């Protein structure tokens, strides 16, 4: 067979064989990944989507630091039982500002893609402090120190800047006020709170997330982040409604 004859000859040339392997092995990647840069039909539009506030971004960093993604996914698949249990399936656009994405690959605990505002702040604080207090059968570790550890805010502007480098539209104003906004979001009665609403939109939640208005703890950041999951845009709800109407 001439094809095999070609291969016999190729096998005798080390560099030629190496190049041929690289060429063939990259076909799969090129066909799967490269088109995503030009085909925009696969990612939905969400013009109303807002960015994470500095406090929420800090919470996201703690989520990554504590390895929450090892047991919790943030990706509702297009399967009936998942939509029944967790809500509308996840859309690509919902991870637009997630660098890196936290879809996860394993669920020891439940999916968190739509956990935002499902439970109260008090519940999240009690649960994080000791999961067994509210869910007796839980196997989740306790994260009590979040409640007593002050949140580091001096580097938040740099975190925002780093996100801007990879495409998140943070403005100079947002970056300059990152630390102030993180404090104000967890102190709704403070005079600085208006700035958060001005920069991040009216839908931004301002609350003393950890139940201690005067202090800015890592728990504030964590709960703020959990309460915004699935709520940066309502594109998913709209898209499911459209699909159910058969359009």
């Amino acid at each position, binding site marked *: 067979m001439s094809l095999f004859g070609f291969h016999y000859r190729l096998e005798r040339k080390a560099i030629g064989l190496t190049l041929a392997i690289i060429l063939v092995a990259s076909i799969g990647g090129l*066909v799967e990944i*490269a*088109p995503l840069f*030009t*085909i*925009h*039909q696969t990612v939905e539009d969400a013009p109303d989507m807002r960015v994470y506030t500095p406090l929420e971004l800090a919470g996201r960093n703690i989520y990554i630091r504590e390895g929450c993604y090892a047991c919790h996914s943030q990706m509702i698949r*297009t*399967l*009936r039982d998942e*939509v*029944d*249990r967790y*809500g509308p*399936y996840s859309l690509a656009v919902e991870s637009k500002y997630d660098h890196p994405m936290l879809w996860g690959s394993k669920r020891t605990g439940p999916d968190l893609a739509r956990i935002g*505002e*499902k*439970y*109260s*702040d*008090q*519940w999240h604080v*009690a*649960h994080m402090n000791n999961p067994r*207090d*509210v*869910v*007796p*059968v839980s196997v989740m570790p306790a994260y009590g120190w979040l409640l007593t550890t002050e949140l580091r805010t001096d580097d938040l502007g740099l975190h925002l800047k780093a996100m801007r480098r990879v495409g998140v539209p943070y403005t100079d104003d947002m970056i300059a006020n990152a630390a102030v906004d993180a404090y104000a979001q967890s102190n709704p009665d403070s005079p600085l709170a208006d700035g958060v609403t001005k920069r991040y939109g009216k839908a931004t*939640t301002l609350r003393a997330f950890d139940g201690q208005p005067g202090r800015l703890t890592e728990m504030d950041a964590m709960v703020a982040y959990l309460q915004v999951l699935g709520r940066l845009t309502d594109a998913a*709800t709209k*898209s*499911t409604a459209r*699909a*159910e109407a*058969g359009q």
Partner: protein
Amino acid sequence: MAVEQPERDSYTGYLTTGHEWNGLKELNTPVPRAVYFFLILTFVFSVGYWVLMPAWPLGVTYTKGLLGIDQRNLVAASLQDAAQERSVWTKRIETESFAAIQSDARLMAIVRETGHTLFGNNCAACHGADAKGGPGFPNLTTGSWLWGGKPEDIFNTIRVGINSTHPDTHVGQMPAFGRDQMLPRQDVIKVVSYVYSLSHPGATDVDPAKVEAGKAIFAANCVACHGADAKGNPELGAPNLTDRDWIYGGDFNAIDTTVWGGRQGHMPTWEGRLSALDRKILTLYLVDKRTPRP
């Protein structure tokens, strides 16, 4: 370099590779036909797959496939099918009154089963898998409801939530009488003594003089919400203080913490998350849970 002549092995009849290692020669056995066959089969399959399913990228779009299959439509269809299957009984739950459903044993059996799943998925995190609550989260099986215990009331509370983001939310707050300096420390202790005595008649561990003094303070500060008889007001979400059902604990210290620092519970709205049908099933499930069945 000598030109290698193909050499046929006399024993197997196959060619050798032409190499020799210390007298050993390597056979060049051809790939078995079955492997070629399955390889060709997978190529044929993939051609069929390219035609039928979404496959090839074409610059700004991609081939959609003749079958027009889209995972999102599939899940929408399976959700519709499920709703269709359940419509035999969901229609009745949607349209009939609470009383009518409660008197139908077969419907209530469905409510118990479906309600259990809905409750477990959405409510159990706070209220517990057995609906008996925990510190800070109300027990739903006692029959004492902050915002009214009629099925219509419970249905509405699930819809709007308490101190939630819903525009029609129930709003309730116990002021921080001590921390916000509305009452001096001694008065707080007196009124706590009085409140403690309401649910612990004949208790000997509080000072009767303080109980008596607390009565007046209660009348001046607390009756607007909790009522002159301290039996609460479901319009304001003010709890009955004369029973043994406490959300934040009913011992002296717990009541003291509540009066001193105030309370403001939070229940999320479920209107955007659960359908009216699901919320009605949950209401019936809870009403049924507090009615002891024979």
